[in-house]
Structure formats: structure tokens, C-alpha cells
């Protein structure tokens, strides 16, 4: 069962990476990051069967970090939207060389 869980975790992580790379909407990119964090959580829970309860503790800490990241990231998106009137990353290119 652990092996299957790790397989699904890897597939979900890959889908998250692909989403970050192919999308331009900043909010959807954030959601893809959440998907990647969840894929990692799944492998933590699966490996907790092998190594004991600390895996669950890591999952809870990852969820805390995800919540903090969502709060700050969405605040940044709101601030960027006020400035650029868009969340499309095509229009946010001040650092482009």
C-alpha cells in the first residue's frame, strides 16, 4: 500500500509541476503549488506507516506552512492586481531582461 501511495503522490506532484509551468493565471499557479504540497503530504502519511507517528506531525506542519503561504501569496496577488489590473503573469514582467 505504501508503494501505491508513493506512486500516486509522485503523479500528483508531477501534475502540479506541469500546472505551474503551463498556466499563466497567478491564482491557478498558487493552487498548483498547493497540489504539490498535498502530494508531499500523501508521501509523508504513507511513510509514517513505515517509520511511525512523526510523519503525521510533519504533515500538520506542512499544512501550517501552506496556510501561511496562501495568506501571504494571495495578499501579494491582490497588491499586484491593484497595480497591474491583472493576475496574468504575461502582464507582470517588470523583471524581464
Amino acid at each position: 500500500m505504501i508503494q501505491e501511495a508513493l506512486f500516486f503522490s509522485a503523479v500528483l506532484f508531477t501534475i502540479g509541476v506541469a500546472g505551474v509551468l503551463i498556466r499563466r493565471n497567478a491564482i491557478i499557479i498558487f493552487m498548483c503549488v498547493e497540489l504539490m504540497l498535498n502530494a508531499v503530504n500523501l508521501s509523508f502519511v504513507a511513510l509514517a506507516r513505515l517509520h511511525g507517528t512523526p510523519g503525521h506531525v510533519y504533515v500538520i506542519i506542512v499544512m501550517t506552512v501552506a496556510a501561511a503561504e496562501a495568506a501571504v501569496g494571495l495578499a501579494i496577488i491582490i497588491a499586484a492586481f491593484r497595480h497591474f489590473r491583472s493576475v496574468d503573469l504575461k502582464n507582470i514582467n517588470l523583471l524581464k531582461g
Partner: protein
Amino acid sequence: MTLFYQFHFYLFGLLAVASAAIFVTRRSPVAAALWLVNVLMALAAMFVMLGADFVGAIQVLLYAGAIMVVFLFVVMLLNLGHPDEIGDLRDHRWRLGAGAVALLLAAELLVVLRDPLPEPTVATTSLAAPPTANAVTPIAEVFFREYLVAFEFASVLLLAAIVAAVALAKRNVRA
């Protein structure tokens, strides 16, 4: 593992993967968010099946309940619900790059899966414990003893995130 258990584990896994694939290809942020909720629910079921009852409950309450509501709230606040006005997929170069990364990760996965993992040696707490036992106690015992410093840092992190979110989202902030 019984066949019933195995079937449902695969069912929820495939549900999560299929929902994730639909999620990254939806144009509308609202539809994408709802498909992501589907992924999170399937993952919560997998957590429970892997013996992490408390983590599964937290997943539903905190992720599907709280974090996704914040995402939907921002979509509503910025009035982004019209899929034709917002950014679409990136152009072919980026898609090829994403495909290359996906192939690389899939190759790594195949290499990793060649050697079967060892069977569980430590009996998981929620599987070993009688069904009437509290699901929170084993996690709390580890969390508040060995990982107390991490717990305190997590609370400081949350406080900093709250302050940062308020400061960033405030109008007319003077630096």
C-alpha cells in the same frame, strides 16, 4: 490487505489523479478551485485509509474548508470569474518544457519503483490502537514533546503571515 481495501485505495487514488488533471486544464479559476477541492477530498480519504485519521479530518477542515475558501474569496474579490478575460495556457515552448519535466519525473518514478519497499515494521498507532482510542493522542504526544520547538515556530510563522497579509492587502500603505 483485503481486496475491498485495495480497490477503494486505487479508486480514491485514480479519482485524485483524474481530478488533478482536470484541475490544471480548466480555464475558469472557480472551476479549477472546485476540482482541486475534489483532489483534496480524495486525498483525505487516502489519508484515513493509510491510518492517519486525524490528518484526514484536518485535511477536510483546514485545506478543503479554509484554504480553498480563501482562494475562492480572492477570485470573487478580484472579479476573475470570467474565463475568457483571463490568461490562458502558456505558448508551446513552455508546454514542451513542462512535458520534458513531466517525462523526467516519470522516469525517476520508474527507477524508484524498481526496488520494492520493505514492509511496515512499526505498527502505526491508529491501526494498532483499539478503535475506541483517541486518534489525536498519539500525534499530540509526539508533537508536544519531541517537536515542541517546531510547534512554537509554526505559531510564530502564522503570526508573521497574518501581519504580512494585512500589511500587504491594505490600501495606501506608506513604506
